[in-house]
């Protein structure tokens, strides 16, 4: 019934949207317009509580909704970080004044980014150094953030700062809600190896942030972060399902080529079958994780394991496609872009090496280094 309602809404709104913005609208404005339309139907963040503008759906329904939305091939929502991460964090930790952001996050009137990593604090995020010093009714912020997704477009930032330099590192961090138009903030795009600039560096020079914009208690920012970073459990399952589908589609293309008379290389065939097996098994682990979540069992290692496995399989697939593209791959084919882009998969959102350390220490109970 929920999905029927969504399907009806999409059938009604998608054609009109495409008529306005064209069949494949990737511009920022188009994406914001699409998010507004979803928000009007209460579909921008169905997992949010009803009182915050969502529908209070559980994890299985969330997955089903996202799967159905993916069928329509609509552009990725510009406010994704706000919808998936910051909004839920504000819902848990925010004051009633801060909760007024929620409606604007839904409608894309506010676009949020997260100021977490720094040049000196990536894997070791707790080592962050951007300082916030109390001065009257404000904090004064100095420092630098890096790898800020959406940094160039964001209207607001969930910023992690050090408020107590004398405390043990995890215990001296606070979270602030920052208006990106504040004086002293400078945003510079970071150009990546694939030529795109999807992230920014953000510099803070004596930026005043009102104390009313402290999110959660002072020096409890690390706990506030846990809400953000631990939030999207079903997300990895969607990635796994999409990867499996991508490989099915690639195999179907190969079969069609064979049908059309192309002689397939058996070694390359074997590679694709291996990819299918690996992607399918990752998806099976995702299904098992969902079964456990739905049964109310405490989540185990599956989410980190799936993220790590998915990222490595994604890279292997890009490698296979790049390799078998041969000379064409390096003479202008988009496969080169896919290959270059794939190199970040095992770095972003937890490097594979750190994930392995965490699995070994926290799940298997092996001693620290």
């Amino acid at each position, binding site marked *: 019934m929920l999905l029927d309602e969504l399907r009806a809404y999409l059938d009604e709104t998608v054609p009109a949207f495409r008529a306005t913005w064209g069949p494949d609208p990737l511009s920022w404005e188009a994406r914001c317009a699409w998010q507004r339309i979803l928000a009007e139907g209460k579909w921008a963040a169905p997992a949010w509580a009803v009182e915050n503008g969502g529908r209070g759906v559980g994890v299985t329904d969330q997955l089903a909704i996202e799967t159905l939305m993916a069928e329509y091939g609509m552009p990725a929502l510009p406010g994704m970080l706000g919808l998936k991460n910051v909004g839920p964090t504000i819902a848990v930790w925010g004051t009633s004044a801060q909760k007024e952001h929620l409606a604007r996050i839904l409608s894309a009137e506010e676009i949020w980014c997260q100021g977490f990593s720094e040049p000196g604090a990536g894997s070791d995020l707790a080592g962050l150094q951007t300082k916030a010093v109390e001065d009257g009714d404000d904090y004064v912020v100095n420092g630098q953030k890096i790898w800020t997704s959406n940094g160039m477009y964001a209207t607001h930032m969930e910023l992690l700062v050090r408020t107590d330099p004398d405390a043990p590192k995890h215990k001296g961090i606070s979270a602030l809600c920052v208006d990106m138009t504040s004086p002293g903030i400078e945003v510079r795009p970071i150009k990546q190896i694939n030529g795109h600039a999807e992230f920014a560096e953000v510099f803070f020079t004596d930026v005043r942030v009102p104390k009313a914009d402290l999110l959660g208690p002072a020096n409890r920012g690390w706990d506030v972060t846990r809400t953000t970073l631990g939030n999207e459990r079903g997300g990895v399952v969607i990635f796994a399902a999409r990867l499996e589908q991508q490989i099915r589609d690639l195999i179907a293309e*190969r079969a069609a080529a064979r049908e059309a008379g192309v002689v397939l290389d058996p070694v390359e065939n074997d590679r694709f079958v291996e990819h*299918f097996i690996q992607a399918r098994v990752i998806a*099976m682990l995702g299904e098992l994780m969902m079964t456990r979540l739905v049964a109310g*069992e405490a989540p185990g290692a599956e989410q980190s394991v799936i993220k790590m496995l998915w990222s490595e399989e994604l890279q292997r697939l890009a490698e296979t496609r790049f390799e078998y593209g041969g000379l064409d791959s390096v003479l202008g084919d988009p496969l080169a872009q896919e290959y270059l882009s794939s190199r970040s998969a095992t770095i972003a959102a937890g490097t594979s090496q750190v994930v*392995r350390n965490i699995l070994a220490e926290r*799940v298997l109970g092996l001693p620290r280094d």
Partner: protein
Amino acid sequence: MTTTSSDREEFRAGLRAFLQAQSSETDVRALIESATGYDPAVWEKLSSQLGVPAVLVPASAGGQGLSYVELAVALEESGRALLTAPVLSSSGVATTALRLARTSPEVQALLGEMATGELIGTLAIPTPGGSLSVDGDAVSGSAGIVMDGQIADRFLVLARDCLFSIPAENAGVRLEPIASLDITRRQQRLELDGAKATLLDRSYAGAEQRLFDIAAILACAEMLGCAQRALEIAVDYAKVREQFGKTIGSFQAVKHLLADSLAKVEQMRGAVAAGVTAASEDAELGEVASVVKAYCSTASAEVVQTLIQVLGGIGYTWEHPAHLYLRRVRTLGMFFGTPADHKRRLAARFSLTGV
């Protein structure tokens, strides 16, 4: 009948405690050297106290009427304990073969006797080049490989699209022992020479592929139990073994090997869950069975190899049980389709090969 997750965990806990007491490493090693390789007293208790052989037998035949999901729990625990009793061969594969046959009084009677554990059945797995001829009710030729043949009361034989049942004591039945890699579970070649057989199903061709798909998945449940235990042994060792003034588990190289083993065991768990669910829901099994078997065969081998690697020198000794786990998973990895067989099958399924 269906069970809940906590029902199954209770079943698992009971089995595990039982097997810890009745199928310890000492017991297993003694049985390896014994005449029959199995302990009838343990089998009797597995049957009467824990109901393992009755799991897959329909209630109408006197069994528990449960599914592959529940049997998978028993198989995992069997693998974990390197149990030498015929859970996979009789309670799993042979029972499945009968479940897939056309219902008849003979089939129901066999299922009923297998449910109590009083009858041990095993399937003759055809080998390439082997062939059987049928003359009236007499079957002759090479029937294939049987697991636990030395203790079986009935051989289930596939010949000419038919399923036959042959009592072990019949004339014309000969078991040729094989010096198998898996010394914890014996296999033999079943040779028939005019052996009198009972015809159970004369059009079994459709069921045969399903039987092998399910058998493959059940073998993976046992491999999962072996792999999980191998990981635990490796982690326990890494926590206590010291070199260079530190426990070896604090070295990242060792931690990363074990984290990779954990990831493989988790994936095996997801694969087996998907496999037994599909088998229990009567879903089409070809793709799932091949994915699960190809993956689990490779992954379980790697996990046990990593155990040996982390153990260092002692992992290479006969005295340490690591090689017993290796022998079991490598052998199961070859039965019901090797990874290469299943990859070929998937390639054909996807129309990447074929005419």
